[in-house]
């Protein structure tokens, strides 16, 4: 990640995030410099922990959103408090899985696009390869990548609405 990418190319992204996080004027350059220092601290450990499980832009977006939310609440955690990603530690226990699966079906029912539901079922629940699904859907894998992101956005929106509705 070059400085040009971070400070120039990502400027519109950071501006949009700051507008959404803060309801008052903030010093843009100061904030972005702090974020940069945060990423580069401890020999850029945060950056080096990036494991290419998403696009760099998506990763940076998530980092920036959470950083600015924490910043707003003056509760910035030490980077060391976040455990490095470990796939083995991400397995939820069986009981939670079952409950959540029931919830997931309800979320699917609340998603307007059944095409998106199909994409999530195939890729996440049935673990299909993207190339295999792209072929089944008669689309390119590049198209599937965009559809997958939109599908996850719709699933998440359904989950957020579900919380509002059921107060969970």
């Amino acid at each position, binding site marked *: 990640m070059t400085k040009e990418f971070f400070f120039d190319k990502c400027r519109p992204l950071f501006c949009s995030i700051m507008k959404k996080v803060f309801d008052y004027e903030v010093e843009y350059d100061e904030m972005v410099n702090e974020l940069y220092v945060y990423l580069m601290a401890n020999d850029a450990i945060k950056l080096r922990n990036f494991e290419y499980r998403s696009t760099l832009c998506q990763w940076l977006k998530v980092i920036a959103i959470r950083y600015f939310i924490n910043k707003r609440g003056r509760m910035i955690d030490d980077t060391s408090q976040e455990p490095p990603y470990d796939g083995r530690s991400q397995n939820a226990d069986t009981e939670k899985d079952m409950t959540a699966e029931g919830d997931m079906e309800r979320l699917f029912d609340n998603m307007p696009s059944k095409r998106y539901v199909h994409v999530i079922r195939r890729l996440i629940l049935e673990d299909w390869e993207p190339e295999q699904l792209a072929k089944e859907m008669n689309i390119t894998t590049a198209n599937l990548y965009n559809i997958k992101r*939109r599908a996850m956005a719709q699933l998440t929106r359904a989950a957020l609405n579900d919380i509002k509705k059921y107060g969970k």
Partner: protein
Amino acid sequence: MANKDYISDELLAAYLDGNANEAETLKVLNAIKVDPSLKEALDIALDLEEEETATYNILPMMKLAAESGNNICSVLCEAFILHRREIPFEENELLAIAQNNHWLKPEGSPLHSIGQLLAHYDLMVTRNYDATINDIFAALVLDNDVIVVVDKEKLYQQEDNEDAPNHAVVVRGIQDEYVSLFDPALQDTDVNVSLSSFLDAWKESHNYMVRVLQSIEDYEPQPINLDDVALTDDLLELREAIAENAHDVWATARKKEGWTFGPERDDTNKKHPDLIPYSSLPDSEKEYDRLMALDTIKLVKKLGFEIVKK
């Protein structure tokens, strides 16, 4: 929240990109219920995603038509039209003009530069997005020439790795369910493709059409539709500043040309009633400047640029 339930940045980004596995997806969905900060972060991420999705309506002005050897398909289309109009030219000279003016780049021709060569040879050229097949038909009836930009792979129903406008072709005719083209990649003046393939391929350029008129009577202005571009409050504030400055630029130019204030417009004696400060202009005149300013800001966004306050 216990540390084991913490959703790492890595996992959250993978989840949003659809790359998390089933257990991870469930873990995120469960965590949203108990972690207000995560909920807010996802809310913001989704809002940004929706804003990005809206960019599907951005016009591909800077996309490159870049098929046929050396990425010169648009130059070859324009050469074809010059030839048809019996205007003498040298192909090498055309290429040099296009390169020198940056209408042709090593990677291809930006969509907004297609037709510049024809204008250079004094032909009347219009460009518009969101054209229809009927627009093409109407242009051909008037013996206008039409260049469109298409996704070449879609045009010929080939394997398509990327949905993108990447090829300029000249439309020669439309008959029933077929469209007849000059395709510079094939050097064929009469390629027939099905109407459905053509429409499928053409939509990738937002139905971009470059029209070469035969006479001034054929000119129908078609400004880009900007209805879907919403502006935030800070950009709306820009409107007034741009409107006032545009008026001052205009007034400066007029004064340099010797124009002065007069109660009525008088071209012979160079008098103009609007040679007064912007603040003193009647509302009707201010509204004209504001509309120009507003549409300019909207157009910048529609063409895919961001205006960022420093």
